[in-house]
């Protein structure tokens, strides 16, 4: 089945130690999104790629970076994680020709910062 895959599902990192989360998709969608979701809150969009075009949300901290080397893969880099960055990180995809840009979500990576 076509899907959005996130690895790892659980990630533990130390305060200040860089960490990379990965997302891959077999849907061949041209838009990929990264969200941060804290407990009992809605997902918060960090940035998204429209093909290779990177779109950063205005309030996304500089500590968060992203790479999309090809259509299938997208990475979230947290350069110096703080305790406040502990959250669920969700990757999603959509297809530009789909009306309304329905988004397909991966299972998420839960990040713990010690």
């Amino acid at each position, binding site marked *: 089945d076509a899907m959005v895959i996130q690895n790892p599902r659980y990630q533990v990192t130390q305060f200040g130690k860089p960490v990379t989360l990965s997302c891959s998709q077999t849907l061949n969608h041209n838009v990929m999104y990264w969200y941060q979701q804290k407990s*009992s809150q809605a997902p918060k969009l960090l940035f998204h790629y429209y093909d290779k075009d990177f779109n950063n949300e205005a309030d996304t901290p500089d500590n968060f970076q992203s790479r999309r080397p090809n259509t299938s893969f997208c990475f979230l880099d947290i350069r110096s994680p703080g305790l406040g960055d502990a959250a669920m990180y969700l990757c999603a995809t959509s297809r530009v020709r789909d009306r*309304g840009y329905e988004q397909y*979500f991966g299972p998420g990576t*839960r990040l713990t910062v010690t």
Partner: protein
Amino acid sequence: AQSVTQLDSQVPVFEEAPVELRCNYSSSVSVYLFWYVQYPNQGLQLLLKYLSGSTLVKGINGFEAEFNKSQTSFHLRKPSVHISDTAEYFCAVSFTDKLIFGTGTRLQVFP
């Protein structure tokens, strides 16, 4: 500007009872509306969507929603809930290539 309001942060209900989760939206352009469900430690799964056409939309797991343009609402309903429906439910409106989410409603089904 687009926005979504989910007035109920929590909805407790007994098993086999009907439930309605409320969603109101604000949009200045064509409206595309979605309901997603999130089980603990999982991603979001699409329940149903309204893009155009019939205002009554049927989704997975026995859920349905009605698009009401005059009341700017898109309430989610299920006639008889099951324990397994316990989850967080998010209403969302599409804005260009992004989704604007409501704050979510926690549905808790009791035996």
